[in-house]
């Protein structure tokens, strides 16, 4: 007894409670953030060359739609997802592959034969034959896939 303590029992307990409580709280917070955020940032899968069909299907000068299925793993569910690309060739030797997803907000674009343009039904985005923006809100040209030809079969590089 006698001399006053620098750190009273009350203050010690208070500091201990806040300290330990804070530590436990931090533990929950870190776990929760990792648990919620990390799986969302996982990328789909590795890149692969998908065979999409014969070159003979492509009409010269007209974007031709090819559809194919890719295997996807979302969470605990394995699924197949249909992917479509427009293939354009002007000379029958070089090919370009364009995504059919509008660069504005992700709707599916369609090739309109009469107008020789791609049109997006959602907000009237219009792209030309090569995927460049003609009018409407899209901020950039259509995305492209790497494409290659082997034994008259077209391949596009998907995933990643």
């Amino acid at each position, binding site marked *: 007894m006698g001399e006053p303590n620098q750190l009273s029992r009350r203050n010690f307990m208070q500091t201990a409670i806040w300290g330990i409580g804070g530590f436990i709280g931090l533990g929950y917070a870190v776990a929760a953030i990792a648990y919620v955020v990390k*799986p969302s940032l996982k990328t789909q899968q590795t890149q692969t060359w998908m065979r999409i069909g014969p070159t003979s299907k492509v009409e010269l000068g007209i974007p031709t739609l090819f559809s194919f299925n890719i295997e996807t793993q979302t*969470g605990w569910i394995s699924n197949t997802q249909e992917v479509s690309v427009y293939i354009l060739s002007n000379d029958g030797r070089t090919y370009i592959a364009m995504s059919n997803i509008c660069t504005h907000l992700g709707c599916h674009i369609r090739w309109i034969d009469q107008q020789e343009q791609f049109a997006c039904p959602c907000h009237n985005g219009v792209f030309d034959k090569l995927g460049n923006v003609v009018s409407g809100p899209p901020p950039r040209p259509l995305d492209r896939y790497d494409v290659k030809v082997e034994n008259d079969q077209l391949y596009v590089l998907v995933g990643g």
Partner: protein
Amino acid sequence: MIAKLTHWLDERTSIRQVWEAIFLRKVPKVNWWFTLGSASLFLALNQGITGILLTLYYVPTPDHAYDSVQYITTQVPLGWLVRGLHHWGASLMIVVVVIHMLRVIIFGAYKFPREVTWFTGVILLLVVIGFGFTGYLLPWDQKSFWATTVGTRIAGTPPLIGDYLLRIIRGGSEITAVTLVRFFGVHVWVLPTLLILLIGIHLYLVIKNGISALPQRGK
């Protein structure tokens, strides 16, 4: 700065008075057995936090329940920890709550004027057991399926109403998708609502009446 803010808040809400009533109230000299209520509250908080996190991935259908639980346990970062905390916290909850009740019985803390605290505590015990019963089915593995088969059969044993009771709990005569989703609904909506309400009343009364002192010989 912080002092200014608390003053601003206090002027409008009397938050300091509330804080003092809750955390700086006078308590008699007691022992470690008197910490079990706080321990139960902490465990309840743990179950709430980890339970909410589990629902972000868990899907209560026969197609996905088992796989989504496996996904949480093996794929999601720290998913094993979140599920583990919920799983072991659940068992610990039952243990702690029961010891808490025994302490109240042995020390006679349920007596006047604390009867209503005791009543809410008894209902809280039933709610906690309900949590355990409904939560057990959700992983949808062999153990949970058969445990629920047995558990609901037991509910079916009373004469006259037994069969109705069994069917109402199962949502039909068998344990199916209907059973799983109603157990899930009860586990995450009905029981938590009851729990929060009852804990509110329970704690209000604990603070209002003060906690009981240790019983003494000749008093």
